[in-house]
Structures are given as C-alpha cells and as structure tokens.
C-alpha cells in the first residue's frame, strides 16, 4: 500500500516536472516561463521527495530539510528572478 502510494506520488511529480519544463522550449516571455517553471518544478520536486520518503523512512531528516529548503528558496528565487529580469523604473543602483 505504501509502495503504491509512493510510486503514485513520484509519478505525479515526474509528470509535473516534464510538463513545467517543456514550457521552457516555447517562444514566450521570461515571466511566463518563470511562472510555469517555478510552480511545476517546486511541486514536482516536493512530490518526488515525498515519494522517496515513503519508501525510505530512515532518511527523513534530510528529506524534510530538502522539502523545507525547496519550498522556501524556490519561491524566493522566483520573486528575485522576476524582479531582476524586469525593467522597472524603481530599481536600485
């Protein structure tokens, strides 16, 4: 039962990852790609780590730490990249 659950989680994570990454190949703006990529990459990575965690429960401290740093840093990196790549008037010098 746990194995089935973990493989379902890993499978959904892989689907998310491929789906978000294929948007990189479109000819769209940076912000559009950043939106799809940050959502799909973070969700996919967290789902894959949860799946691995269900299979190997002994490695939980590192996997929980990885989930926390993914959720924190990837969202923050999305904001910073969007801010830096846009030509706003109020950028600091």
């Amino acid at each position, binding site marked *: 039962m746990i194995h089935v659950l973990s493989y379902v989680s890993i499978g959904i994570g*892989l689907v998310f990852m491929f789906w978000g990454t294929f948007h990189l190949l479109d000819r769209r703006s940076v912000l559009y790609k950043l939106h799809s990529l940050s959502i799909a990459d973070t969700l996919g990575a967290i789902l894959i780590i949860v799946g691995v965690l269900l*299979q190997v429960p002994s490695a939980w401290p590192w996997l929980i730490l*990885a989930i926390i740093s993914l959720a924190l*840093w990837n969202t923050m990196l999305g904001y910073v990249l969007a801010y*830096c790549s846009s*030509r706003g008037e109020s950028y600091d010098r």
Partner: protein
Amino acid sequence: MNLTLVVFALLGAMLIPLYEAWRNEDIWQTMLALTSVATKTALIILVVATVRNDLMVAVAGVIILSVGNAGLMLLAHILKRMNYSNQ
C-alpha cells in the same frame, strides 16, 4: 530497484533546460534554464543518496538546494546591475 528508473527519468528531464540554456542567447532565459538545472541536479543527488542509503550524499544535495539557490539570487542581482549600468 525502480528508483533507478526515476533517476533516469530525472536525467531525461534535466536535458531539456540544458538544451534551452545552450540554444538561447538571452541571458535571463539562460538564467531561468540554469535554475531549473540546479533544482533537478539536487533532486537527482537526493534520490541517488536514498537509493545508495548514503546520508552524506544526501547532505550534499540539501546544501546544493539551499546555497546554490542563494548563489543564483546573488548572480541575478549582479547581472541586473551589469545590464542596466551601461544604459
């Protein structure tokens, strides 16, 4: 073990942003592709570490996840300054 197949699928997923980073000339598109490469590499390291049951490798993956992303943020700020100080 089936987790090996997951590693190969992740390697396949990593080839897409690598191709994009090689193809695209625009620096922000390249940056975006490289952030995707960084996340996927750290994830591959974590999965490999759990397959091998090697906690030290898992620590390296977690460090890459946090410090690598922080480094990418600093790099984005440097690129912004370089882009807009010439204009």
